[in-house]
């Protein structure tokens, strides 16, 4: 794997549609989950209708568009007409190849960007059609549900190092998490506790993992709060 910029260039070679548009790496690579899990708001198992991988029990066990619509219907998603951001809703997009076989999914969290997990590679934030390509095919269906997923899940937020006024260079952000600017991370971190607590209290079945994460985030944030921001 290359460094941040090099790695982005490597990915853009696979996803040329990302050139000239927003295309930012937002996580390390990991085989722990794939784009389907990521679209579903999970980050710790690989989803696919195949023995050995997770698949919602209510959905047909094949990789057709209909099977994926049913699978995400079981999560509360319903087909909709537009990919534009709509307050209070989050969306997922299903990509199919020429044979209408599903190849990829992306999710639109409440900030309006689209986010994808690229196989066992990294997560990226992108314009929806930036990842359309031969391997992923094209967007075939948009689904939406009332917003409840988080912008970044547990373990995926890199906090900037603490600023120590008298010893560090005043403008230094320290090692940057790939191509995401420092400022963006500041706002993400600031926004985290409230939605996570909301999720944790929503009684959604994923309550316990997110409660654990809320506690983890608190543990991460508190040491940094001892240092002045900005």
């Amino acid at each position: 794997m290359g460094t941040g910029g090099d790695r982005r260039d490597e990915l853009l070679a696979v996803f040329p549609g990302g050139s000239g548009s927003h295309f930012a790496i937002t996580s390390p690579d990991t085989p722990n989950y794939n784009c389907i899990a990521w679209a579903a708001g999970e980050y710790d198992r690989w989803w696919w209708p195949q023995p050995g991988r997770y698949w919602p029990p209510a959905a047909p066990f094949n990789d057709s568009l209909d099977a994926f619509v049913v699978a995400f219907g079981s999560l509360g998603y319903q087909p909709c007409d537009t990919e534009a951001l709509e307050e209070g809703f989050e969306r997922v997009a299903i990509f199919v190849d020429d044979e209408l076989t599903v190849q990829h999914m992306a999710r639109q969290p409440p900030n309006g960007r689209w986010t994808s997990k690229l196989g066992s590679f990294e997560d990226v934030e992108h314009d929806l059609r930036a990842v359309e390509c031969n391997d992923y095919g094209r967007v075939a269906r948009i689904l939406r549900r009332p917003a409840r997923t988080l912008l970044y899940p547990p373990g995926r937020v890199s906090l900037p190092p603490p600023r120590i006024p008298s010893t560090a260079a005043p403008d230094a952000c320290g090692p940057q998490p790939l191509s995401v600017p420092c400022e963006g991370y500041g706002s993400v971190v600031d926004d985290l506790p409230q939605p996570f607590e909301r999720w944790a209290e929503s009684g959604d079945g994923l309550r316990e993992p997110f409660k654990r994460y809320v506690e983890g985030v608190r543990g991460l944030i508190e040491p940094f709060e001892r240092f002045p921001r900005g």
Partner: protein
Amino acid sequence: MTGAAKSVGGDLRGQGLHFASQAARGLRPKAMARAGLSGPPGADITMLEDVAAAVRARELAERRRTFTALAHQWQAACGHLSSTTKRANHKAFRAIVAMGRPAIPLLLEQITRNPNDWDLALAEITGENPVPIEDAGRVDKIVAAWLAWGARHGYRR
């Protein structure tokens, strides 16, 4: 070493290391005696066993080279794919599955370093699935289940 023993060694070298490997595994002291081989006790056996060990080491190294090349090829071609169907049908993945049971130790090594879909190759080769259904898709559980399977079947200590 007697002339007969030299002759056997010469024949072995002439007919290839594979035959030498079989010979070293097959010949035991009584058989050597029946074949009229003599010399210091065990000398001929030692020579043949050395040849067999060298052959096995070479086969293993060659298998490992092939496996590593296929694994890299697969990772480069399929790393960005989420479709397990497509990943498991890639020609490099199929070639690894086609290596059969000799690939099992290499797959168990690989699954610890870079888990990906190697459990699917193991399942295909062995016809077994040690991963509980509730752990489907969970990489850490999948790896642990296959490593335990490897230990039970003598592939790992």
